[in-house]
């Protein structure tokens, strides 16, 4: 059963049902933490691996934007009354498993931008029609930057595949990281997702998003002559 509600401001959120407020808070916390983990584990270390000043400063900008996404989600959370500690690493919320593997090469970073940022785009897309308008607006502000990050992945993929050695290193990175990505979208029987959809905070089931991701990831990989390994599916 779905509920019809529109919350236009953070102030209006105080009058929303508790289930709605908790659901929105979970999403904001999740985005704040994962944006920060992504910037710390992948984007900032990648600056050292980037091969030229052009790539290094481009990666600096990407890292800055990812940190900026964390800052924006954290600021929204603080306006909602969420303590800062709950939106920082080390709290009760566990990070996504992909963040447990420190970046080792430039090719890994390119693979992550190509495919993991595609997963991020899908997550943000699902908030573009969110009934909590401050979160919807934040998603809309974030989307062009997320698209640029995925384009960054495509541009450097196009560079790397110009040589057989580069393509082989990139394929190895895809093979290593891709299996972790489908679980980004959560469990098939997620109670949280049910509540998000009930209140039109999010639009699609986790499985619908996962299927869309697999389709789009396959398309982008095929475009560059890469293959996707068998992926772990969420429980």
């Amino acid at each position: 059963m779905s509920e019809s509600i529109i919350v236009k401001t953070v102030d209006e959120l105080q009058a929303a049902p508790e289930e709605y407020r908790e659901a929105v808070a979970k999403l904001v916390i999740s985005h704040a933490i994962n944006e920060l983990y992504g910037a710390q584990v992948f984007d900032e270390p990648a600056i050292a691996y980037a091969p030229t000043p052009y790539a290094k400063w481009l990666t600096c900008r990407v890292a800055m934007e990812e940190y900026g996404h964390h800052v924006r989600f954290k600021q929204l959370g603080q306006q909602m009354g969420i303590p800062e500690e709950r939106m920082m690493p080390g709290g009760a919320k566990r990070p996504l498993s992909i963040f447990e593997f420190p970046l080792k090469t430039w090719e890994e970073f390119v693979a992550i931008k190509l495919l993991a940022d595609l997963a991020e785009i899908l997550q943000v897309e699902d908030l573009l029609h969110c009934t909590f308008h401050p979160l919807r607006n934040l998603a809309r502000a974030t989307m062009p930057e997320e698209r640029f990050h995925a384009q960054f992945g495509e541009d450097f993929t196009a560079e790397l595949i110009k040589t057989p050695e580069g393509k082989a290193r990139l394929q190895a990175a895809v093979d290593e990281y891709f299996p972790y990505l489908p679980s980004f979208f959560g469990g098939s029987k997620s109670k949280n997702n049910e509540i998000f959809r009930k209140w039109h905070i999010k639009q699609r089931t986790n499985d619908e998003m996962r299927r869309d991701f697999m389709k789009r990831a396959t398309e982008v990989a095929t475009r560059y002559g890469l293959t996707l390994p068998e992926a772990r599916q969420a429980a």
Partner: protein
Amino acid sequence: MSAVVALPHALLQRVRDEVQGAAWFAALGEALTEGDRAEADAYARSLGLGALSLGRAQDWPEAERVLKDPEWSTAWWDREEAWRRALQARAETRYPERALWTALTELTTGTGDLVHGKAAAAAARMGGAAAASIHVAAGAAAQAVYQLALARLGEDGSPLFDSKFRLFAAGRWPLGVVGSTLLLF
């Protein structure tokens, strides 16, 4: 071991004021002035890479070629990074870690939006820039602000990051070192 002291917000506000007042990317492609040469000389000397000549990129495509040149000097980048890490370590022992991290993150993300717009305006004015190069310029400028903030927080006596920022503040973009030449845009 020195005691942890409160973050100097007034000092960081002065950095923000300097960022706001800078002529970001306004002099790209223009002939170098005496002031530009003096600041570039101070920057080159503080890099400690020996004698460097001064060169100039005249337009965006030339700047892009410089930044993608396989002969670029990794020693230049590594020297800056080593000094940045030393300053960061110094700041982390002096100031509360969370407050320091938050202040620097908010400074650089806020700067990023400002300089991105300035770089886009310069690219539109001059023409010929690849779309990604605007992001590259913004990344370089925001990195310079981050380095400047660390230098100020660390009461750094070296002019390295100060002179680099001064070049950006004067509307130039120090593109780095290729061979034995420091290149400005």
